């Protein structure tokens, strides 16, 4: 074969624009024409569902949006499905943010969940409160764990939280569960100041955080882990509430298979051209 015309060389040195174009196509087409492929539910998601499903009307959950808006797109399905399940179980919810970009998430969240909130008569002040951006750093997390009302006196609109269900929250002992939806902004601070003291916690994190978060599930600091967008889709399937997660699973699947395909053809090209050229 000549140096210029070589299929192996083409595979080894594939133009990255072709990769970008093909990835764009395999991600866009299933969104426009959903296929609804089957989805197996992993043991991690089943455990997460079990923890949330055990909540009741006497429980108070700290719902922490520990994410920038960019990362929220990956855990959006987990956030919405978890919030839906908490509302259905009647547990009280205090929503807090640890990044300024996350303050835009609660209005979108409750707009999406308006039907289930009306169905279960889930009211602001009685059943849920939005505290806003109250965890700007680890010092705020540490303070809230020791003396919640010493740190948080108002909700995100400046209205006092006195007189709401948060009157019963004084420190780390009083939360029934802390549900963290994280891209890694402040989750380690919650581990240190809540988890290690024994407050039950669950986490929904992005894919790259899963290997470093799993040891905490193994040691019991996190009761369960919901893995990334796929975990959110599995949770949507478990609670029978299809949402953005399930809608994205088709392109998730095709995207993965395309990356595997490119790895394979790149290796074929490597052995057929680069390796042989080096040996010659």
């Amino acid at each position: 074969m000549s140096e210029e015309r070589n299929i192996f060389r083409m595979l080894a040195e594939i133009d990255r624009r072709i990769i970008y174009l093909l990835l764009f196509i395999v991600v866009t087409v299933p969104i426009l024409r959903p296929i609804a492929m089957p989805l197996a539910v992993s043991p991690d998601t089943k455990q997460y569902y079990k923890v949330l499903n055990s909540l009741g009307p006497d429980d108070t959950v700290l719902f922490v949006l520990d994410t920038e808006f960019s990362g929220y797109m990956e855990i959006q399905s987990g956030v919405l499905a978890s919030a839906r399940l908490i509302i259905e179980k009647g547990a009280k919810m205090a929503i807090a943010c640890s990044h300024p970009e996350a303050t835009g998430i609660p209005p979108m969240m409750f707009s999406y969940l308006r039907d289930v909130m009306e169905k279960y008569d889930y009211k602001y002040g009685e059943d849920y409160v939005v505290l806003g951006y109250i965890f700007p750093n680890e010092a705020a997390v540490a303070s809230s764990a020791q003396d919640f009302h010493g740190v948080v006196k108002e909700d995100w609109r400046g209205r006092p939280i006195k007189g709401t269900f948060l009157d019963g929250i004084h420190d780390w002992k009083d939360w029934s569960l802390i549900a963290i939806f994280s891209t890694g902004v402040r989750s380690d601070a919650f581990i240190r100041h809540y988890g290690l003291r024994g407050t039950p916690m669950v986490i929904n994190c992005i894919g790259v955080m899963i290997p470093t978060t799993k040891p905490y599930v193994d040691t019991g600091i996190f009761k369960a882990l919901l893995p990334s967008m796929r975990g959110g889709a599995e949770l949507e399937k478990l609670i029978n509430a299809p949402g953005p997660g399930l809608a994205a699973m088709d392109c998730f699947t095709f995207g993965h298979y395309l990356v595997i395909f490119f790895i394979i053809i790149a290796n074929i090209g490597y052995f057929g051209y680069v390796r042989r050229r080096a040996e010659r």
Partner: protein
Amino acid sequence: MSAFFRSREAMLIVMVISFLIVFIPYFFNVPALEEFSTTWITIAAIVNAFTLVLAVYSQFRRGIYFIRTGKRAWGFKLWMLIGIILMIIFATMGMEKGPYSWAMQAIITPLSSVNYGILAFYLSSTCARAFRARNLKAFALLVAGFIVLFYQAPLTGAIIPGIEPVARYFTETFAMAFARVFAISVTLGAIVFGIRVLLGKEPMVLGFTREER
């Protein structure tokens, strides 16, 4: 008198006292100290927030220098400074409604999402170029990565149930072991560094340039 407050010893005394104020309530239930500790931490958080003002000031100084000297890509610096000024003005006009809210919803959040989304393209291109079986170890890494990546595709778990135990074995043994090694190393390093700071062996933390020998 001022020389004492500027000295390394004074800074170390303040640092050790602050450490004890926060450290002791974690292990011993002393209500008065807990309350003081919370106040102390809140003060520290507020002081920390003021450093943002310093950061914005230094960005402006640097940006204006770039623009005045006409350095390469000075236009982006100008755009950044205009953005900072506009967001500060918008924030004073109310954050819940109005231009600040519009800027967050219409500009920052979509751009933030795009910033994250385009990583998928770079990641795919990098995977194709980096994951090559150059030797036996690389081949073993490739096989393990291939199995985990294959399992992560939702359809695979549904049509090939047997792949789940294999993929979970890789993630729950090797991956978790290395994650633990990383976490333990970082934690031990942080503890050692903290002790060195409290003993005054890291003068750079206090703003002094020469290290104690």
